[in-house]
């Protein structure tokens, strides 16, 4: 296969993993997280160090990266998930920046130089398998008792508590699972490009994943897949104007907000568009502030 198309496919696969895991947090549980790229970086750095320095097999390295990301997800989630809406968004954003700055300053991660010479382990087969595993696992979660609890929390947290749902527990759990798969995405990324830098996983990358979820439709499995596909391919097609990528994202979001606020596949219901347009406003506000 042409290397260029292979790379595009692999990126799409990684982005599907990222978007669908973020969808669990934002779309199904209603927690606006702006730090998804930070979990990806934890997975990327951990797995890269595991193969590079410890010589571990790729599969084990991926798993360790994902577990480390998940642990951070849980540790960060426990206090921050008590916050609501805007405050949660700001806290996760802050967390993402802290992770980035720590990686910029650590010796073991190569600091501002980045981490080079990571073995090329990721291939099409790994990516396709992990996309399928991620999709399958998330699908199982969403259609289980746990998924019900997450939906209830998204719809109305106080009412969910009154139904006997321990919202702190489930929100933290979902944050951990989301971070786990983001860690897998990071591991795949690191072992494909063979070079990672803290800025590869910055705030704007978190926003990109958010855009994928919102474009595809919050709370829809296939929506995240379509969103990830479109927002990987479109910027590629417009390579000559790569600098305008964020502008394009902004325009896409504004158009969606006017035309189809629930996303391409999102469920439309009177009240839901209200929360969605709130998300858009937050996202756009944050992009503007940069």
């Amino acid at each position, binding site marked *: 296969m042409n290397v260029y198309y292979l790379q595009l496919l692999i990126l799409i696969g990684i982005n599907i993993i990222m978007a669908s895991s973020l969808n669990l947090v934002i779309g199904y549980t209603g927690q606006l997280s702006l730090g998804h790229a930070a979990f990806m970086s934890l997975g990327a750095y951990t797995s890269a160090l595991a193969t590079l320095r410890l010589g571990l097999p790729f599969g084990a390295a991926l798993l360790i990266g994902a577990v480390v990301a998940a642990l951070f997800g849980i540790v960060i989630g426990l206090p921050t998930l008590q916050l609501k809406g805007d405050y949660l968004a700001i806290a996760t954003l802050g967390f993402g920046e802290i992770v980035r700055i720590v990686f910029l300053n650590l010796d073991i991660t190569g600091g501002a130089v980045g981490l080079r010479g990571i073995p090329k382990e990721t291939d099409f087969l790994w990516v396709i398998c992990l996309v399928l595993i991620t999709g399958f696992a998330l699908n199982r979660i969403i259609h289980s*008792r746990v998924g*019900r609890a997450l939906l209830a929390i998204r*719809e109305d947290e*106080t009412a969910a508590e*009154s*139904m*006997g749902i*321990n919202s702190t527990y489930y929100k933290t759990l979902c944050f951990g699972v989301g971070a786990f798969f983001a860690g897998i995405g990071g591991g795949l990324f690191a072992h494909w490009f063979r070079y990672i830098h803290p800025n590869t996983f910055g705030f704007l990358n978190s926003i990109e994943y958010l855009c994928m979820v919102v474009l595809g439709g919050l709370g829809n499995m296939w929506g995240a897949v379509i969103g990830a596909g479109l927002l990987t391919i479109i910027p590629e097609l417009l390579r000559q104007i790569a600098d305008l990528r964020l502008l394009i994202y902004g325009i896409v979001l504004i158009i969606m907000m006017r035309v189809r606020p629930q996303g391409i596949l999102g469920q439309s*219901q009177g009240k839901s568009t209200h929360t969605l347009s709130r998300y858009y406003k937050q996202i756009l506000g944050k992009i503007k502030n940069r």
Partner: protein
Amino acid sequence: MLRVENLSTGYNSIRVLKQISLTVSEGEIVTLIGSNGVGKTTTLRTISGLLRPTEGSIHFCNKDISHVPPHKIVELGISHVPEGRNIFPRLSVRENLEIGAYTRKDRLEIKKDFKKVMEIFPQLAKRQKQTAGTLSGGEQQMLAIGRALMSRPRLLLLDEPSMGLAPLVVLGIFEIIKEVNRQGTTILLVEQNAQIALRTAHRGYVMETGRIILDDSAEALLQNDQVRKAYLGE
């Protein structure tokens, strides 16, 4: 069954409840009436664990629940139908009811209760797949009550079930409340509509700015001059 003693709570530093005491015995419908902002909702929220008391105690079946988190209180057998209903708008009627049974594991019994709720609310039975947010106000109230019943509570806390509903619909809802009580669920009912509340309940408490000023049987309160002037508009 429920014993609230010298309970005080507030939001931040503002004290809303000032040492209120009340009891509910098994099998009763007890109502708590009072005008806007006196603290009725706050009382229910404190009982169901959504707010922490600053003073006093709440006992349920002889167990101190004043500092038990809300999800545990449901397991103990208290179910709260909040003011404004708080149904899950984007989930279907059926899903809303299923979440109501979240703390339970006995599938067969849950199925039975589901059927029972469908019998009590035939209007909902026809609309199992409809998204709850598109139900009418009355149907949403029915769903909220049905959802609370799905946890098979021993004590049901109802916060202004009449709110925003047409008089005829209100009558229907209160008939159902009586029926639910006849089938064995104890009820603590908060209402601004004192007339219908006192005609439904066995006993009542009257609340004014964070204090309970009167308590008596419902008939006696209906005859009470003070109540008639202030709450029954006579």
